[in-house]
C-alpha cells in the first residue's frame, strides 16, 4: 500500500531500533569515560556486544538477575558513573519496579534503563514478553524521563543524548526491522516534540514504531483530501505540552498512536493535557486492555488495530466529533 502513496518521508533501508541503541551506546562510551554498561544475560539481543568488546573494564555481565542489576547501577552512579542497564522492556520495568522506584527514581540516580523488545512487535515470543504497560509504569515515577524513539537513527541519537542528561531515564525500543526515515545527523532534544508534517484538519501524535504508521496514514488521508499534522512525541515524559496545545489549537482534534495500552500511555498523557487546557476530541490507537499473542509484527499490528489503516480510521472518527 505504502509504495503507491506520496509519502512525506521515505526509506531505503530497514533496521531494528535496538541496533540504533547498540551503536549509540558504543558512541556514548567513546565520548564519555564515565559511561558503563550492565546487562542481564541479553548482550546479543540488546546489541551491547560492541561496547563490551571496546570497553571490557566498563561492562558488567549481571546474569539473569534484573533486580540486582538495577541496584548495582544505582550504586555505580554515586561516584559519577553513568550506567546503562540492558534487558527486555518487560524485565526492565514490571519485574524491577520497586528497585527502580526506591533505588533509582526516589534516590534521583543517573541510571539509563535501556529496554528492548517493547510492545507487540516483539512478535512470536508472545504476551509474556510483549509488555504494553511499561510506559505507564515508568511515567508515573517522579523524576523519571520516558523516551520512545521511532527508528534506528532516532534511537541512536537518543541514546547518545541521554548520556549527557543528568537523571534517571527509561529508553524504550524494539526488535523488528523497521523503516529508517529520520535524519542520521538529527539533534535529539529530550522533551521537545518534532512536528514532522504540517496539517490543518487533525493532529496525529505518535511515538515509537507507530510514527512510521502515522507517516503512512498522513499520505492516505491526504489522498482523500484530509490534511493531517504528524507530531513525533519521542519523549513521553516530560511531555511537550506546548507543542500539543499549539497544534490542537489549530486542528481542533487529535489521534494518538502507540504500541502500548490505552491505560497509562501517550494517549492518556495527551488527553490529560487537552482536558486541562483545551478540551478537544481525542481518539486512541493502541491496545485496549488486552494482552498480546504470538504472530509476526505486521499481523499483530493489524489484529490489535495499531497500523496505518487504523490511524486513518481513528482520524476520520475524531474529525466527525469536532
Amino acid at each position, binding site marked *: 500500500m505504502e509504495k503507491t502513496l506520496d509519502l512525506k518521508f521515505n526509506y531505503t533501508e530497514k533496521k531494528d531500533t535496538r541496533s540504533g541503541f547498540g551503536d549509540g551506546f558504543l558512541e556514548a562510551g567513546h565520548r564519555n569515560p564515565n559511561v558503563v554498561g550492565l546487562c542481564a544475560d541479553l548482550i546479543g539481543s540488546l546489541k551491547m556486544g560492541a561496547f563490551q568488546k571496546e570497553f571490557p573494564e566498563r561492562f558488567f555481565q549481571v546474569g539473569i538477575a534484573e533486580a540486582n542489576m538495577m541496584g548495582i547501577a544505582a550504586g555505580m552512579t554515586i561516584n*559519577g558513573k553513568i550506567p546503562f542497564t540492558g534487558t527486555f522492556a518487560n524485565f526492565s520495568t514490571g519485574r524491577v519496579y520497586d528497585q527502580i522506584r526506591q533505588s533509582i527514581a526516589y534516590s534521583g540516580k543517573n541510571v539509563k534503563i535501556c529496554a528492548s523488545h517493547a510492545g507487540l512487535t516483539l512478535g512470536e515470543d508472545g504476551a509474556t514478553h510483549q509488555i504494553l504497560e511499561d510506559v505507564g509504569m515508568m511515567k508515573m515515577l517522579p523524576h523519571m524521563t520516558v523516551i520512545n524513539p521511532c527508528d534506528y537513527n532516532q534511537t541512536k541519537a537518543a541514546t547518545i543524548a541521554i548520556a549527557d542528561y543528568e537523571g534517571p531515564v527509561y529508553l524504550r525500543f524494539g526488535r523488528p526491522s523497521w523503516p529508517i526515515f529520520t535524519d542520521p545527523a538529527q539533534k535529539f532534544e529530550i522533551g521537545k516534540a518534532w512536528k514532522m508534517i504540517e496539517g490543518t484538519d487533525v493532529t496525529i501524535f505518535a511515538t515509537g514504531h507507530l510514527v512510521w504508521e502515522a507517516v503512512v496514514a498522513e499520505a492516505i488521508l491526504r489522498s482523500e483530501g484530509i490534511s493531517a499534522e504528524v507530531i513525533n512525541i519521542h519523549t513521553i515524559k516530560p511531555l511537550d505540552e506546548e507543542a500539543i496545545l499549539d497544534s490542537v489549537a489549530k486542528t481542533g482534534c487529535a489521534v494518538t498512536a502507540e504500541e502500548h495500552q490505552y491505560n497509562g500511555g501517550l494517549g492518556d498523557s495527551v488527553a490529560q493535557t487537552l482536558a486541562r487546557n483545551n478540551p478537544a476530541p481525542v481518539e486512541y490507537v493502541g491496545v485496549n486492555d488486552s494482552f498480546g499473542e504470538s504472530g509476526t509484527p505486521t499481523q499483530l499490528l493489524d489484529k490489535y488495530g495499531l497500523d496505518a489503516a487504523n490511524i486513518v480510521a481513528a482520524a476520520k472518527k475524531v474529525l466527525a466529533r469536532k
Partner: protein
Amino acid sequence: MEKQTIEQLESTASQVRRDILRMVHAVQSGHPGASLGCTEFFVALYFNQLNHDPNFKMEGKGEDLFFLSNGHISPVWYSVLSRSGYFAPEEMDTFRKLNSRLQGHPATEEGLPGIRIASGSLGQGMSVAIGAAQAKKIDGDDSTVYVLMGDGEQEEGQVWEAAMYAAHWKVDNLIATIDLNRQQIDGPTKEIMDLIDLRAKYESFGWEVIDTLQGNDMKSVVEGLEKAKSLSRKGKPVVNLLHTEMGFGVDFMVGTHKWHGIAPSDEQLANALGQLPETIGDF
C-alpha cells in the same frame, strides 16, 4: 576524624541510645528495637573504623562508604551521623515530622547529609553497595564499602542475586554485616522463616564469613570489623555475622521483637533514660 577508644565509644553509645529513644518517643513512631541492638556497630563504624568526611559529598571519592539496607533502623543512623558532625543534633527533633530531612526511612530527596540512597523496601542495599564498590575499583579508589542488612531481610531474593554476583565479580572491597538478632516483625526468624545456617549459605556462595558473637560488646564489635577489614581485598567479599540483642541497653526492651516498631510511653522513656547516662548532651 580521631578514632575513639573503646571507653569513648561506649560513652558515645550511651548517648546514641538516648537519642534513639528520645526521637522515637517524641513522634510516637519509629523502630527502636533493632536501632538499640545495632548501636555498638554504628558507633564503632563511624567513630573508629570508617575513613569518612562529615563535610558530606555524595561521590565520597577516597572515602569509605556505608549503606543501610534495613532502612527502618534510621534512628540509630541519624544519631550517629549527627553526633559525627553531618548535621546539627537539634535536627533530630524533626525525626519523622512534616518537612523534615529525617524521613521515617532514610532518603536522599530532602538532601540529608550522609545518606547516599533511599532504603526501607528491603533487599536492595547490598546491590547498591556492590555497585559503589565496583565503581571505586574502576577509579582505582582503594576505599572500602560497607553495608548493613537485617537477618529477616535475608528472606528477600535480591540479597542472593547480589551475593552470587559479588563473589563472581570478586567484589573484595565490600564488607557486608548482617544484624543477627533472630527476630522479625511477626516473631522469631526460626519460626517465621528459618535461616538455618547463614554461615554455610554465604560460604557456599563464595564469601569469606566471620562471626561477631558479642555484637553488643564494643571491643568485640571493633575487633570483628578489624578482622573483616583484614580479610577484605583477598579476592572474596566479606560478610560479618553480627550477633546482637534487639533492644539492648534497656532492660525491658531487650531480647524481644515486641519493640520492633513501637515507641515508649512517657513513663517507659523515663525508665529507659535512667539506664543510659547522658554523655554528650541531649539534643
